[in-house]
Structures are given as structure tokens and as C-alpha cells.
């Protein structure tokens, strides 16, 4: 009977768990790491970014985002939208082509890969023959022209990737029509560019690397015009009126050619070298956009004088008399221009530039060409992220004030709306206002609106103004003198070089009710700031906190303290510093806690911790936690690290200067490089096997290094000394498994300014397992964590239960341990490490709401382990609830960067510039929900594919089936791709099934009336 009942309870709990917890990685915030390709669809108004790791990301209007990942771990080199369709083609580094489609499913669009294709040449041909260098998606939406390294242009029918061999444009056919004297003995080299005549879709332009350009008539299958360029070709542009062709060259020049009746033109109409006389770098891409009245916009990238500005990443925009060289801080990947009208017509409105570290959009309609602030793709890593802090459920008042402060800062941005506005954001409004704060190496704190899918920059705070920084302010290389040539203009905000790493932000604590912010940094500085809507001059006086407390025999060899400015400093509206504590020795601050109700800040370093009263601006308590034998902590290990870092940065700068722009096609090189890398890796592995890694098994001892490092600080109003009177208390936990508790005595509020706050040691706990203490929480009489300061005062939390006994929860890296209060004795524990060998890296308290019952919620601990797993542990029973693998265990920086929200979500860095957002809660989920409505198709293309839901694998099935038939009929040599697919058992079965049965579907597909939008690979999650 008993057993039966318990069983019933368990199933009830299981059901409840399903209602409470659900794991999903929902959206990636920030800027994609290592972008390698950019695509844009003027019809859909979507931009696509491909990365070196094979991901593609589509962005439209704010909130409209899609993501896909290629199975191959190869860089995306080109992205082309099929005109007038919801499909796009990607070209990968491994020469495979992939087709992706935006398919509507249950009212939402999904990005799915629907096909893949690798060009196969005639048997025995060298690989260069089929190495794709240029792709043209024909406006009919049915043909792909693939230019290759060998100089051939292959024609492929889409969707379905059927090679139309009879229409291929071979290099031999071209050479026949080219005069002998031009050709000489040299070949044409690779196909560098393919363009369609903007007015006549039956004519395309083929540009060869050697310099030859020709127009090809698709109807007659022969060439029409020949432009006998003599310079190495980089790119071509067919002006929208179809009359002129621009070609850009590797020597930094561009040429203009006019289409006339002549068959051959040996000389261009115009040959210009914009930054001329001295040798220049290549112009990698050129475009000319016409305007209704007045001169056109000429936009080109590169072309800078090699010797003096060869290291700049520039795009030049020339319009009438205005000439600006937009100077980016990182390498240009690609760019495009948007137009005010639909379908790519109308006046040019904005220039969208993808550089390696950010997306910059320049408003071409407003005087001065200001930059438009991006609503997504924010470069989180402008300066390296050093820490992050999340605050859930911001009160509207504070939100508005932060926004207002941020608007003052963004005055220089264009007021034009975001020019890329494809798709509809169907996501419901965010349930609450959430802030994500990131601390950066340059001493700034950035405030991000993390409520929804778009991580939108709200406000940027700099703490550097408080100090005399080493930074050389006279370095004004950004602002060129009047009349300077080329006319540089610095754009973009990516600047990873911090001049003083001591300014780096390590800990942030924001009180959302009072607007007080505490920020702690690398050189032991703790700055307390207050939100002020007006600009003000502040004199910030530093208080020194000697954490050593007269410990003898000890020398700090690390960095020095930051120098505080002694005069009043003007601070703009926003968070303004008013109090400063500097730790001595100036070691990095490792923990920070702010109690805005008591007006106290607690801080800890590897030497000890202190308590600062920011109302009276004095130190209440300093406690040294140092183990006298801990030499490493005494000396400050940063000293050596810093010097390495500095020299590294210098050498990076040197490399950056000397680096020449990377050429587009380094086909052979890439393959060779991969090979070498693989070999090196294998060698490294072998070496590892020779000398096996071994681990020492030893219990922790008090002599270990950094046992005194303060890992966590916590304020609680609880029963520390006796069971009947609660009092304010401060708790500190160290790396050596010690917990120190202090009773705080606060004067009555009317005497708050005069009477001192005092702190008395009340308890010390030494955990016998000595693992670092990573979290301390006091649970109230109901077993719920104590609310945040001022939370109850603002009616946002239930006041804590003070009638029943409180409990202390100490979370170490190895165990969760519950103690009774006020008499500290162990009550409950969960030994995580002893059970599965994983250790707690990050822990947070979160409230989980039931997805079924509106008013049911419970608190739990959210834990990220060193194995990258997420656990939810119930409170107060300390039972493991769920476990999900989340981060790769090798991704140490990802695990270290994780922050949890109060409602079961979290963020971690998947690259220096991207946060992955995940959710453990079944109720709260922020994920992109958007729909892209495909534009009405022109009547001519009645066969336009309509995405249709089909069972998984259907597309593969059809295509293979058809290929199979083709193979039989045409006796084509087996294709590699197909071979791979045929090896797949599942695919074979499906082929069999389709051969046996459903002929109609095959016919349907063949006639292309309803091609399958089936799911081959689902990467949209």
C-alpha cells in the first residue's frame, strides 16, 4: 500500500516536472563569429550571413531571424537568393552547393536545407574544372550558372540540381571567338564574375580572372560582346540601365565599358585609379547605383595605396562631389546597397557592410551619411567581454531612465528606420523587461535589452573617467585632417584593444529598484554609481581597503592600483559614480554584493573581503582570508600574465598592419592548409599517447593555493545569533571551503548618516571537503530563498516567512549542503561530485512556473557543471530534478560565461561575440517566431514552387529516385553525392518504396509543379 502510494506520488512529480522544465536553446544573440559570406534578397528584404563554421543566419525586420547549419564543417563562401523566391543557394568551401528554403509551417517560417549538390566534371578531369568560383542565380529562378576555376560555366537546373550539359559554356567555346593575339599562349584562368543583364535576362556577362569579359546569349548559345581587358579582374558590375559595365582590377583601378554594336572592344571608355599614382591594392568589388536625378553613387571596396594605407579596410563612396573612404576596423567580407523602392528599384537608401567583426549600415539618404544603429547583430565584443550580469523584470521607471540615458548617447546615429525589413515578427511581446549587462575589458558596462529575440543596445557606461588611464588621448588617427587624401571616415565600433587592462570589469551588481549600480574591476576597484537623469560633475574620492590586515612577509608583484582623478569629473546623464573603494593589494575583485536597502557593498578578492557603507562612505569591515603559506596569492599571479598579454597585443597589431588583404579564391591553399592541420593534429595526438596524461589523487588541504579567494558574498536578514531575533548579516564563502558570517548592526534610519554600522563575526564554517564555496543562500521558513533587497518594499515579492526556522544553503563545487539556523548543523546534502564526477561551475536561484497552471511556481537551483550539463535542483528538498547537456565540456569559456536569469533562462558565450540563449522553463521561452511571406510570383513563372509540408526525407527520396532513373537512361557515371546517399540504408529503403509505389509523386516532382519542400536536415532549431 505504502509502495503504491509512493509510486503515485512519483508519477505526480514526474508530471509536474514536465510542466515546469523544458530545455531549449532558443536564439543566438550578437554577431556571428567569423562571418565569411553575405547575401541579400531585395524581394524578401532578408539578408543572409554565412560563417566559417558552416552556419547561415537570415535576418529581416527586427525579431525576424532564422538559422541553419550545414552538416559539413566548411566555410560558407557565397550565398545567393534565388530571385523572386524563398530559396537560397550556399556555396561551401568544400565546393558543395546547398539549397535552403523558407517553409511555412503552422503559421511560422522555418529555414530548411532541401538539397545539396556537387558539380561533377567529365571523368578524369582535374578538380579545378569543377571548382566553383562564381555563382549566378538566374532571374528565371530555374537556372544556376556556375563558373569554375577551370574557366567553364556549368548550367544547373534548380530546384533539383540537374546539370544541363548541353547548355554549358566551355572555355574552348569562348576561346574560339577571342582573337589569337589577345589570347597568346595564356589561358583565361578562372571565372571571376557572372552577371545577368538587368534588362535582358537572356544575356549574361562572364568575367575571367585574366581580364577578358564577354556577354553570352543564352538563346543562341554564343558570345556577343567581348571586352578585352588586360588587368587581372576582381569584379564586374552591370549598371541597372544595361548600357554600361564596370570592371574592377587587382591593381586598384576600375574600367567602364559601354555596350555597343562592336563585337570586340580592346580599350575601356574610362580607366581610372581612384587612389592612383603609387601602386594600389585591388578593388575587390565595385557597384554603381543610379539616382533619378543627378549623378550615380559609385561604391567600391579596397583600392588603397599599398604602401601608406595598405592595411586599411575601406569602402569608398563617391556621389557627385562627395567622396568618403569609410574606414572599418576589421576586414570587409562583403557589402550591398538597399534601395528605397521594392524589387531593388528606386533610389539607393543604405549601404550594408559586413565586416569581420560587425555589421555597419550607412544611411545614404541623409546628409553626412550617418550610421544606422543595428537592431540586431550587435558586436558584443567591441571590447572583449569580461563578465555579464542579468537582471530580470526591470521596473518601467528604471527602464525608461536607462533608455533615455542611452538615447543621449546615440544622437549621432541616423534617424532612418532599419532598411532591412523582410518578414513579420509574430513573437508575442516579451513578458517582462530584462536587462543583460556586459562588462568589458576597456572598463565599460553595456546595457542590453534582453527581453526579446533581439539583443538591443540600450546604454553604455564607461568607468574609465574616474581614473587617470594610461590611454593616449592624443592618438587621433581616426580624425583625418582637413583635405586629407584619401578622405577617411572611421565607422564601426569594434575596437578590441584596451589600453589599460586594469580597467576591465569583473563583477557587476545592479539594484533594479533603487538604480544603484556597483561595478568591480581587475585592479581591485569597486565603483558605486547612481542613476542621474542630468549630466553632473562628480568628485569621486577613493577609499582604500587594506585586505592584508598587517599580514607579514608578503609582497604584491602584480599590477599597481589605478590612479584616481583628484578633480571633479563631468559625467553625462546616466549612471554616475559617487563612491570608490580600492583594494590593497589591488588584486582582481572576485565577488561583489550590493544591498541597496542597507546601502552596503561587499567585495572580495583573493586576499579577503570587505564591507563598505556607501552612505557614509567608509569601510565597515575588512577581513583577511589569506592562508599565510599561500605564496601564489601573495605575489599576484597577474604580473606575469599581464606582460604576456601586452606583448601579444602588440604583436597582433603588428600582424594586422602587415597583413595584406586575403584574396578571394585560395582554393589550393585552403585544401593544403587543412591537410597540414590534420597531420599536425594527428601528430599531437600521437605524442599525447606516448606521454599519457595523469591526474593526482589527493585530498584538498589547507595548503592549496588560493584557498582564501573569496568566491561568493551574500546579504541576508535572518536568524544568525538566536532563533527569535532576526538581524542583517553578511556571508562570505572562500575557495578553501570556508564560510564566514557576520552580524551587521544598522542604526535606525533617522540616525543612518551619523551612527556607524558595525559588523561582528558570528560564525565560521569549514567544510570538511574543502571545495570552493560558489553560492550561499538563506531559505525562509517556507523553504523559499529570501527575496532581494527592496523587493518586498516594492510589493514584488512575498515577504519572507520569519516565524519558522530559516535554513542556510551552502553550495560548494562538490556539494549542496543545508544547515539549520541559528545553530549551524548539517541537515541535508546532495553530493554531486561524489555521484557523477561533475563539479558546480555556475549556480543561480530561479523560479519555475508551471506551463499548465497559471499560479503554480516553485523555486529551484539552476546549476551548470564543468561537464557542461545543466541541472535543476529542487528547493528546499535538494533533489535533482532534470539534467540537460548544454555546453560542450571542452568549451571552458562558454561554461565560465554563463549567467542565469531569475526565471529559468540563461545565456552563455558560444564565441567571443555571440550569446546563446537557452531556457529551462516550460513557461517562459523567448524564441524567434516569424513568418516570411513569399512575394507574389510573376505570372510567367507559374511553376514557382510552393513550399509544402512533406514527411521527412521526401526531398531526398524524390531527387534520388529521379537521379536513379537518369543514371539508367543517360548512363552517366555515378556521382559522388549520390553514392553517399545510396550508402544510407534509410534512403535506399525510401528509394525502393518510391520505385514500387507512388509514381505520381515522382511525376509531380518531375514536372516541378510541386517540388518537395521536405525536410532533409532540420537545423532551424
Amino acid at each position, binding site marked *: 500500500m505504502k509502495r503504491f502510494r509512493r509510486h503515485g506520488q512519483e508519477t505526480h512529480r514526474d508530471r509536474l516536472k514536465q510542466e515546469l522544465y523544458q530545455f531549449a536553446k532558443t536564439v543566438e544573440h550578437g554577431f556571428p563569429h567569423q562571418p565569411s559570406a553575405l547575401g541579400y534578397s531585395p524581394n524578401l528584404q532578408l539578408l543572409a550571413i554565412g560563417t566559417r563554421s558552416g552556419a547561415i543566419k537570415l535576418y529581416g525586420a527586427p525579431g525576424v531571424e532564422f538559422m541553419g547549419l550545414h552538416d559539413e564543417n566548411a566555410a560558407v563562401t557565397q550565398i545567393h537568393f534565388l530571385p523572386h523566391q524563398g530559396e537560397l543557394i550556399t556555396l561551401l568551401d568544400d565546393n558543395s552547393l546547398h539549397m535552403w528554403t523558407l517553409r511555412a509551417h503552422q503559421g511560422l517560417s522555418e529555414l530548411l536545407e532541401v538539397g545539396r549538390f556537387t558539380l561533377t566534371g567529365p571523368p578524369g578531369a582535374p578538380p579545378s574544372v569543377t571548382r566553383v568560383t562564381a555563382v549566378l542565380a538566374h532571374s528565371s529562378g530555374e537556372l544556376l550558372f556556375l563558373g569554375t576555376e577551370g574557366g567553364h560555366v556549368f548550367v544547373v537546373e534548380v530546384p533539383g540540381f540537374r546539370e544541363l550539359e548541353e547548355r554549358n559554356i566551355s572555355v574552348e567555346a569562348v576561346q574560339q571567338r577571342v582573337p589569337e593575339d589577345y589570347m597568346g599562349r595564356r589561358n583565361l584562368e578562372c571565372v571571376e564574375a557572372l552577371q545577368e543583364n538587368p534588362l535582358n535576362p537572356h544575356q549574361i556577362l562572364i568575367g575571367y580572372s585574366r581580364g577578358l569579359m564577354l556577354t553570352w546569349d543564352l538563346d543562341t548559345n554564343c558570345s556577343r560582346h567581348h571586352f578585352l581587358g588586360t588587368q587581372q579582374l576582381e569584379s564586374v558590375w552591370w549598371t541597372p540601365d544595361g548600357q554600361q559595365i564596370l570592371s574592377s582590377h587587382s591593381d586598384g583601378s576600375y574600367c567602364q565599358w559601354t555596350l555597343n554594336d562592336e563585337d570586340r572592344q580592346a580599350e575601356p571608355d574610362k580607366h581610372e585609379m581612384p587612389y592612383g599614382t603609387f601602386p594600389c591594392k585591388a578593388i575587390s568589388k565595385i557597384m554603381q547605383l543610379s539616382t533619378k536625378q543627378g549623378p550615380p553613387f559609385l561604391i567600391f571596396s579596397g583600392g588603397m595605396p599599398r604602401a601608406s594605407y595598405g592595411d586599411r579596410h575601406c569602402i569608398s563612396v563617391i556621389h557627385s562631389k562627395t567622396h568618403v573612404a569609410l574606414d572599418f576596423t576589421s576586414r570587409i567580407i562583403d557589402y550591398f546597397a538597399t534601395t528605397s523602392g521594392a524589387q531593388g528599384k528606386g533610389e539607393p537608401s543604405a549601404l550594408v557592410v559586413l565586416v569581420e567583426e560587425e555589421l555597419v549600415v550607412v544611411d545614404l539618404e541623409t546628409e553626412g551619411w550617418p550610421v544606422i544603429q543595428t537592431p540586431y547583430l550587435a558586436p558584443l565584443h567591441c571590447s572583449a567581454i569580461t563578465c555579464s550580469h542579468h537582471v530580470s523584470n526591470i521596473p518601467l521607471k528604471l527602464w525608461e531612465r536607462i533608455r533615455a540615458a542611452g538615447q543621449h548617447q546615440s544622437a549621432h546615429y541616423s534617424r532612418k528606420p532599419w532598411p532591412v525589413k523582410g518578414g513579420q515578427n509574430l513573437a508575442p511581446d516579451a513578458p517582462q523587461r530584462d536587462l543583460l549587462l556586459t562588462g568589458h575589458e576597456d572598463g565599460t558596462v553595456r546595457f542590453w535589452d534582453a527581453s526579446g529575440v533581439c539583443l538591443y543596445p540600450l546604454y553604455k557606461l564607461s568607468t574609465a573617467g574616474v581614473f587617470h588611464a594610461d590611454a593616449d588621448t592624443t592618438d587621433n588617427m581616426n580624425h583625418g585632417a582637413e583635405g586629407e587624401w584619401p578622405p577617411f571616415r572611421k565607422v564601426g565600433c569594434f575596437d578590441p584593444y584596451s589600453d589599460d587592462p586594469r580597467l576591465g570589469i569583473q563583477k557587476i551588481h545592479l539594484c533594479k529598484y533603487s538604480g544603484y549600480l556597483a561595478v568591480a574591476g581587475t585592479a581591485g576597484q569597486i565603483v558605486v554609481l547612481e542613476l542621474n537623469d542630468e549630466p553632473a560633475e562628480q568628485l569621486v574620492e577613493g577609499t582604500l581597503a587594506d585586505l592584508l590586515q*598587517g599580514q607579514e612577509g608578503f609582497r604584491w608583484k602584480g599590477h599597481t592600483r589605478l590612479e584616481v582623478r583628484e578633480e571633479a569629473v563631468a559625467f553625462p546623464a546616466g549612471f554616475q559614480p559617487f563612491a570608490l573603494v580600492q583594494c590593497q593589494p589591488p588584486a582582481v575583485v572576485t565577488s561583489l554584493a550590493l544591498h541597496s536597502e542597507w546601502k552596503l557593498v561587499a567585495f572580495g578578492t583573493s586576499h579577503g573581503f570587505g564591507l563598505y557603507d556607501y552612505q557614509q562612505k567608509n569601510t565597515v569591515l575588512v577581513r583577511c582570508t589569506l592562508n599565510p603559506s599561500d605564496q601564489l596569492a601573495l605575489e599576484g599571479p597577474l604580473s606575469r600574465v599581464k606582460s604576456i598579454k601586452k606583448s601579444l597585443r602588440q604583436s597582433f597589431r603588428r600582424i594586422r598592419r602587415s597583413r595584406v588583404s586575403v584574396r578571394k579564391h585560395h582554393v589550393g591553399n585552403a585544401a593544403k592548409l587543412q591537410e597540414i592541420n590534420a597531420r599536425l593534429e594527428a601528430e599531437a595526438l600521437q605524442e599525447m599517447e606516448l606521454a599519457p596524461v*595523469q591526474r593526482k589523487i589527493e*585530498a584538498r588541504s589547507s595548503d592549496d593555493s588560493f584557498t582564501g579567494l573569496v568566491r561568493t558574498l551574500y546579504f541576508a536578514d535572518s536568524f544568525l*545569533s538566536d532563533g527569535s531575533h532576526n538581524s542583517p548579516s553578511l556571508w562570505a564563502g572562500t575557495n578553501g571551503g570556508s564560510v564566514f558570517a557576520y552580524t551587521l548592526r544598522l542604526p535606525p534610519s533617522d540616525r543612518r548618516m551619523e551612527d*556607524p554600522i558595525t559588523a561582528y563575526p*558570528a560564525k565560521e564554517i*569549514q567544510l570538511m571537503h574543502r571545495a570552493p564555496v560558489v553560492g550561499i543562500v538563506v531559505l525562509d521558513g517556507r523553504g523559499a530563498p529570501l527575496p532581494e533587497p527592496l523587493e518586498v518594499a516594492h510589493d514584488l515579492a512575498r515577504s519572507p516567512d520569519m516565524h519558522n526556522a530559516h535554513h542556510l544553503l551552502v553550495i560548494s563545487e562538490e556539494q549542496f549542503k543545508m544547515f539549520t539556523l541559528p545553530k549551524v548543523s548539517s541537515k541535508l546534502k546532495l553530493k554531486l561530485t561524489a555521484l557523477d564526477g561533475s563539479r558546480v561551475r555556475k549556480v543561480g536561484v530561479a523560479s519555475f512556473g508551471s506551463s499548465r497552471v497559471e499560479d503554480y511556481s516553485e523555486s529551484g537551483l539552476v546549476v551548470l557543471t564543468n561537464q557542461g550539463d545543466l541541472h535543476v535542483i529542487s528547493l528546499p528538498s535538494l533533489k535533482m530534478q532534470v539534467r540537460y547537456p548544454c555546453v560542450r565540456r571542452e568549451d571552458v569559456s562558454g561554461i565560465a560565461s554563463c549567467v542565469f536569469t531569475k526565471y529559468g533562462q540563461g545565456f552563455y558565450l558560444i564565441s567571443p561575440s555571440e550569446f546563446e540563449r537557452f531556457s529551462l522553463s516550460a513557461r517562459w521561452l523567448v524564441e524567434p517566431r516569424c513568418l516570411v511571406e513569399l512575394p507574389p510570383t510573376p505570372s510567367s513563372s507559374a511553376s514557382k514552387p510552393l513550399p509544402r509540408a512533406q514527411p521527412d526525407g521526401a526531398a531526398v527520396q524524390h531527387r534520388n529516385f529521379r537521379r536513379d532513373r537518369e543514371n539508367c537512361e543517360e548512363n552517366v557515371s555515378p556521382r559522388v553525392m549520390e553514392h553517399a546517399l545510396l550508402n544510407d540504408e534509410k534512403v535506399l529503403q525510401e528509394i525502393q518504396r518510391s520505385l514500387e509505389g507512388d509514381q505520381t509523386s515522382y511525376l509531380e516532382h518531375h514536372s516541378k509543379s510541386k517540388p518537395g519542400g521536405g525536410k532533409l536536415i532540420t537545423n532551424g532549431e
Partner: protein
Amino acid sequence: MNRSFNKSQSLRYLDCTAVEVKSKYGAEFRRFSVDRFKPGKFEEFYKLILHIHRITNMEVMLGYADVHGDLLPINNDDNFCKAVSTANPLLRVFIQRQEEVDYSSFGTNTLTRKKKAVVTLRNDVNRKRPHIRIGMPQDFRPVSSIIDVDILPESHRRVRLYRHGSDKPLGFYIRDGTSVRVTPHGLEKVPGIFISRMVPGGLAESTGLLAVNDEVLEVNGIEVTGKTLDQVTDMMIANSHNLIITVKPVNQRNNIVRSSRISGSSGQSTDSGSSAGFAGMPPPIAGHSFPPDDLESDEESDIVIESNLKRPSRRSTSSTASRAQPQAMPPAPPPPPPPSPPRPPSVISTASFHSQPSLNGAGNHNLSYKLHRDLNLQHHHSSTPIIRESNGSLHKILNTLRTDPRHSLALPRGGVEEDGTVITL
């Protein structure tokens, strides 16, 4: 030798139950007898010896010559009993003053060697390897044991290492490796965790139960298959206070023979066959699975120091002071803080500690009891109101207490600054 043999033969005729004892202290001999079957307690025997030799107020160490001619100590009921029962027929007892005890003289072949040594140079004797100190019975504790012999396959060995209170390092290393398993598909190579190195003088080495290249199968009842080296490392460290490792010894020759179930041999390898269990050793834990909490003995308890709040002392900058509080004063809510001038930033308030009987320490092993006693002792010592330094030293003290109880008896150089302490163990 011969003479005594004969004599004892004759005595045996008289009374078979009596054992003739010949005790030697310096150059003096005493002879008496004890009952072979009821030898009595060691304490009584010890007093008797002291009485007979008239050295009542002296601390001595007793030893006897066993059948093999080895000098073995008599310092508890068990080895006294053993000594009497194995006396063949004469029990020769040697008395040494505690201060002069030459521990190297104990052990295997000691007596025979000693004889030789006397003949040869005396220096040779002194040059022997450092002696192992044999403590009094209350200091004895198990360091390792083989457990679950009955439920494990013969090729496996489950070893329990006791580390509590000892400052000896566990002292071994583990590495990744491959092991061969028999599976339905034949032999298969699977990754495994192996012991890669032993630290000389470490606990692992001194037990003789673990060896380099032993494959680690379980840690405290949890299988390690599928876990990384780092995970297994962390698991072992997390269980280091009471580590139970199941290994597949690389040397399968010394496996336990099922018929002779030997439990808890200490410091000897199991194949010797001559080791006997110590009385007072915990019986081997039976049962297949090891929920870690069940295994957990009280040695893992955390140390909690609670201080009574009292009036904060006013002090100069960096020195800390505390005033002792009368013991009788019950813990009371803290009095309101006196209006005092702004405190310098470096002020630390110190704790006054109050001695209380330990609540749950009664059933604990000696360590806790001693800890307690020491601290009480210290309390009396320092109960006079003196101003003392207190800067993290409590921490220091606790460290020393934990690692070696004997140190605390001697009250180390740092000294306990607090007026009293409650330690809950």
C-alpha cells in the same frame, strides 16, 4: 635457553595452566607465573610488572619474545593474550623505559639479529632504516581494508582507504588507458582508467593493496565507465575522506582465496596468510551497492564555530582585542552598540567563544573527543581576560586540529587566541 626449556618442562608437570614468566629490566630478572587461560587484563599485568620490578612510577614499554624469536610489543589486551597463549613454554618479557624505547628492536627477526649485532659492530644496528613508531592502542586506526570479498568476482578487489585524521597523502595517480573486455562480439578494447603512479610513503602505497596499472572500475560504488579522467579524478577527490576503489589488479596472482576470508588486514598484502584482524576494527561493510551517504562516517562533518556576540571592543588600528566573557553568562541578545567614534577601516571585531559540551560528538571517534578536550583545556588556560591577537588564526588552528590531533595537544606556536570554542563534529 636450554635451561629454561627444561625448567618449564618440569613446571608443566606441576601445573599445566600456569605460564612461567621471566621478565627482564636492565640487568634484573624477575620470575613469576600467570594463568595461561585466564591471563587477565593488560593493565593488571602492566601494574604487576611495575610492582615486581619496583619501578612503579615509571613509564615503560613491554615486549616479549615470540616463538620465532621476534621481539614484539605487549601494549594491549590482545597482544598480551597472544603472548601468554603462545608462550612456549616460557614467556620472556623485556622491559624498556618509555623514553629509551628503541623501536627498531621490534619486529621480525629482531632478537636473532640483535644477537648477531652484539657479536658484530654496534654501529651496524644503528644504521638500520628509520623505525616505525608503534603507538599506544588508542592511537591505532585502520588505514585500509579489503571489503566485499564475498560479492565481488575473484579478479576484482574493493579497497577502502581511511584517511581521517591522518596527514598522510593518498598518494597515487590515475591515467587513461585501454582495457580488454570480453563481450558477446568477442574481445573488445574499451577505454578505462588505470593507476599510473604511487607516491612513495603515501597511503595507497603503504597499504599494498593497490598497484600501478590496476584498472579502476568503481569509485565508492559508482562505475567509472563512460567518465572522463577528470571526472574520475574529481569523484575520487570528493570521496577522499573515505575512498573505496574497486580495481582489477594487474597482478592476479595474489587474489584472495575464497576459503580464507580475511578481513581488514592492515598494512600487509592479503596473500601473506598470516595477518590477523585487529580487534576493534570496523567489520567490513557488506552489501552490493554503496549509497555514498550510508558509507559516510562522521569524519566528514564540517567544523562550525559559533561565537557569542558581546560588546565590541574599541581598539587601535590594526590590533584586535577581545575580552573574555564570564562563562556563566547565558547567550543573550546582543546589547545595542555603544555610540562610538567612526571605526578605522581595518578594524576587526573578534569573537568570544563559549565552551559547550558537544552535542553529537559523543559517539565520535577519538579525534573529536580530543579536539574537544584540547579546546576546553585551552579555554581554562586563557580564560583570564587578556588581550590577544586574532586574525584568521582560528582558521589556522582548525587546520592544524584537523590534520593532526596530536599537534593540538601540544598547542602549537600560533596558539589559540579565542576564549573558548564550540566545535560541533
